[in-house]
């Protein structure tokens, strides 16, 4: 379980996060939704130890250490491998540094996303860059996967392919946190929703419980919360 406890973060005088708390369970897809602001990405960076913050974050009751990077991975929405590398070289790099690298899964994902090993990273389209990031992240045998805006700014068919990931064994038993500003066509694929606004959590709920107890869809609750 990832426990985010009252974390706050300022850039200059601007409060990006103001006492954000939530939990994300293993074996569930948790969705951080925020219509505006940058708090979502900052939250993921804070969990990954990529930015300082006030408050506390525990991963399976422990603070982040260097070894945690074998247990939790972050898939950003921008290219992070060297452009002069080929996809093959990026895979070799990952295999070199992570003991949790699973090359069998990597090859499966290469096929699933129809990526070619010899393609230089600098030549990938936005959609294929997102797929490369997913391929590299999901090929690690980690317990938690954090994905930043996996659907934003890419073509429809890539979106569909990426959505298929959420209905596959690729996320099975893992804790997944994704950020998005529009719930789109993955609404039925997520287990838990955290609604953020102005750096605070407005609502945290389980989607199936919300449907069962109140007969409301995620979009219904978003409308309620953001238009209130």
């Amino acid at each position, binding site marked *: 379980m990832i426990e985010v406890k009252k974390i706050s973060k300022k850039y200059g005088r601007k409060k990006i996060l103001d006492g954000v708390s939530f939990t994300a369970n293993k*074996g569930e*897809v948790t969705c951080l939704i925020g219509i505006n602001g940058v708090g979502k990405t900052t939250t993921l960076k804070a969990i990954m130890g990529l930015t300082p913050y006030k408050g506390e974050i525990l991963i399976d009751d422990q603070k982040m250490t260097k070894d945690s990077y074998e247990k939790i991975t972050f898939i950003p929405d921008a290219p992070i491998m060297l452009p002069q590398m080929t996809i093959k070289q990026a895979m070799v790099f990952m295999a070199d540094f992570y003991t949790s690298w699973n090359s069998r899964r990597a090859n499966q994902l290469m096929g699933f996303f129809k990526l070619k090993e010899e393609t230089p990273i600098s030549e990938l389209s936005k959609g294929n860059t997102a797929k490369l990031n997913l391929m590299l992240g999901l090929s690690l045998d980690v317990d938690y996967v954090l994905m930043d805006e996996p659907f934003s700014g890419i073509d429809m068919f890539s979106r569909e392919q990426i959505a298929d990931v*959420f209905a*596959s064994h690729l996320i099975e038993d893992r804790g997944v946190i994704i950020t998005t500003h529009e719930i789109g066509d993955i609404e039925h694929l997520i287990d838990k929703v955290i609604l953020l606004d102005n750096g605070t959590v407005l609502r945290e709920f389980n989607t*199936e419980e919300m*449907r069962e107890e109140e007969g409301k*869809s995620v*979009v219904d609750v978003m409308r309620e919360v953001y238009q209130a």
Partner: protein
Amino acid sequence: MNVNTREPVYLQVVRHFKEQIAIGKFVAGQEIPSRRELAASLNINPNTAQKAYKEMEEQGLIHTERNFPSQITTNETILQAVRQELILAAVDSFVDAIRPINVPVDELLRVVKEKYSEEIREEEEK
């Protein structure tokens, strides 16, 4: 399966299974897909598939022995009840919809009968 986002997805999966049983696509004792296969084919997440299977086990629709694929129950009473339940549920919502119009029962039954046979005839012609 078309997902309705206002109703628990796992219950929709359970109903989907019941429909398959009622129309005979799944028969007593038949092996059913693993939760992975089910998730992929219905485009739902594997946790939801897992939850649906758990619910169906609790209802006695399927049973699983360790390290074997789950199977549709061989208990005929339960299977019959599934059919009854679906019929009742459909009739319930039909009654709810028609009630405000205040149609006499005889007329209603006549219309239903005509409409129903027409549908079947059309389907057979296809």
